[in-house]
């Protein structure tokens, strides 16, 4: 206590009245600044970057192409992580995200390729369907009072089965191609595929900041064409999620709904509505992921999105959110997604066996959660 270096000392001089009749727990501003859900993820991200910079620094991983490579992968994780993050803070899970990705993709492909529906309409219908299923998920959770773990686990199977069945029923196969041709010139499809800032990147190529192709049909074009729409979506969703959560009334209700639903209901927060909307938002994010992927590959496959629900949850947990709800951060989840993308592609660049990715995934998850819990306890002195 008398050591001038300790935060308590600093606190004693900060003008807060000393009270003897209450059990006051003084928390210094420094500690409060450190107790942020993102803390673990920030440390993790720095660690991962340093690690791969050392072992794969000369492999092109941090060149323009390499950066684009892991940015796209991170962006994929980020898109579903934002949805999972808000839902988890609202106190619920959605394990059907992966199946939802497969489902949305197949719906878009069947509608646009098989039935000749304009791609923009197919996309809108797919969004409407998946968000309706998200709402159904939420309504079932609210009405039955069952844990969302069980309800969405059921939907994990129901949706995956339906997707494969639908695909085989209409095309006799589980992969539907020709989506890109069907989407040619479509105004809405353009929002999910391709790149922006092409001119800027061409200029960067021309002045030699990034390499250009020297041969073939794309000779003279930069190796990185522009910012992929996928990345634009990820950034937009992160910003949207972050502002919604930390700056708006609704965000406050998300925290309250997950933190203590009964307390929130007592003061008139529409807890059920908040939760159902978050299920719908998670479904929306899954659909964005699915449609970006379909536009990129030009095809949809019934088995897409396998295990994505867990990867999304892992990103969120690395980002410092509590599984029990009421605590977490979109920025943290986005950093979790970045860690993921960098690790997955870093292993590839460093020449490691790619199957080791999952080993890393599991290891990082445990390390991150231990670190988060440990740091939180260390700093706040809280129990359990």
């Amino acid at each position, binding site marked *: 206590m008398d050591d001038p270096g300790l935060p308590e000392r600093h606190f004693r001089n900060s003008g807060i*009245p000393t009270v003897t009749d209450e059990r006051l*727990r003084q*928390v210094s501003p420094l500690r409060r600044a450190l107790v942020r859900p993102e803390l673990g993820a920030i440390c993790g991200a720095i660690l991962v970057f340093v690690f791969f910079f050392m072992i794969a620094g000369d492999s092109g991983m941090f060149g323009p192409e390499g950066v684009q490579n892991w940015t796209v992968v991170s962006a994929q994780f980020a898109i579903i992580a934002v949805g999972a993050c808000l839902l988890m803070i609202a106190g619920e899970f959605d394990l059907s995200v992966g199946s939802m990705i497969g489902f949305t993709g197949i719906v878009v492909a069947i509608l646009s390729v098989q039935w000749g529906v304009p791609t923009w309409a197919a996309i809108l219908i797919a969004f409407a369907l998946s968000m309706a299923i998200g709402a159904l998920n939420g309504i079932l959770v609210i009405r039955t009072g069952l844990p969302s773990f069980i309800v969405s686990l059921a939907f994990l199977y129901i949706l995956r089965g339906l997707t494969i069945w639908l695909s085989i029923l209409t095309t006799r196969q589980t992969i539907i191609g020709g989506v890109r041709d069907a989407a040619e010139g479509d105004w809405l499809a353009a929002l999910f595929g391709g790149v922006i800032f092409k001119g800027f990147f061409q200029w960067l190529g021309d002045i030699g900041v990034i390499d250009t192709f020297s041969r073939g049909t794309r000779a003279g074009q930069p190796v990185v064409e522009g910012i992929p729409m996928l990345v634009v979506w990820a950034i937009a969703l992160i910003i949207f999620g972050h502002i919604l959560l930390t700056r708006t009334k609704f965000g406050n209700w998300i925290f309250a709904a997950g933190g203590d639903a009964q*307390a*929130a209901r007592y003061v*008139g927060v529409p807890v059920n509505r908040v939760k159902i909307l978050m299920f719908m938002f998670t479904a929306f994010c899954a659909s964005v992921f699915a449609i970006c992927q379909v536009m990129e590959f030009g095809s949809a496959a019934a088995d897409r999105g396998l295990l994505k629900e867990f990867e999304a949850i892992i990103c969120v947990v690395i980002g410092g959110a509590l599984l029990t709800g*009421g605590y977490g951060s979109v920025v943290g989840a986005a950093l979790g997604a970045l860690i993921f993308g960098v690790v997955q592609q870093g292993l590839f660049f460093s020449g490691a066996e790619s199957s080791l990715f999952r080993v890393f995934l599991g290891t990082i998850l445990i390390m991150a959660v231990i670190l988060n819990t440990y740091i939180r306890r260390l700093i706040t002195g809280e129990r359990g």
Partner: protein
Amino acid sequence: METQPLLELSHIRKQFGGVVAVEDFSLDLHPGEIVALVGDNGAGKSTLIKMISGVYQPTDGAIRLSGETVSFTDASEARARGIEVVYQDLALADQQPVYMNLFLGREKLMKGLPLLDRRSMVKEAQQLVEDLDVRIPSAKATIRDLSGGQRQGIAIARATHWAKQLILLDEPTAALGVAETAKVEKQIAALKERNVAILIISHSLDQVFRLSDRICVLRRGQQIGIRETAKTDKNEIVAMITGVN
């Protein structure tokens, strides 16, 4: 009491399936008056509070607020009419700071923007806890870090801040120590001076006698009687509660 009663309950009855929780209950409550509801467990006290606050709807009978018959379908409607409840389980969000709890469900927004005005909420919350002498490190402190007495102080501060007319207290000091209880009682007395009507459930007869103007006794859903606190004693009240003379 020549003023118009703020709250009039007449012949309230509540039935859950085959069980009658409250039978033919009538009570008037005036501004600036504290009425205590006493009775053993299962007497129907909490059910009554929940009917007034809109959580339950009475099976029969009428609730009038300032002479006007009301029928709330949920808790937020009652709140909109200036009725606040302090529950024994506090009803605060643990992970959230004090000021957010004070403003939960009624957040202040910036002018012309759908964004939270944290600064003015913190300022108002700080002012409020200082006025009510709730001693907490700061309005930004997280509820989790506070003691039971401090938490109850916050819950009462919230009710005080928003209640225009009526506060319902459901065993506000059940979980508190002696010094903390004294502080909460001081807050309740201060509310009375602000001309708010108060209905309090308490198992502590000492507390009831310290605070209330009138005491209303319930036993197994039946209204046994109402006494003016100054004209009765503990023996009479205990006899009414237990039904044993």
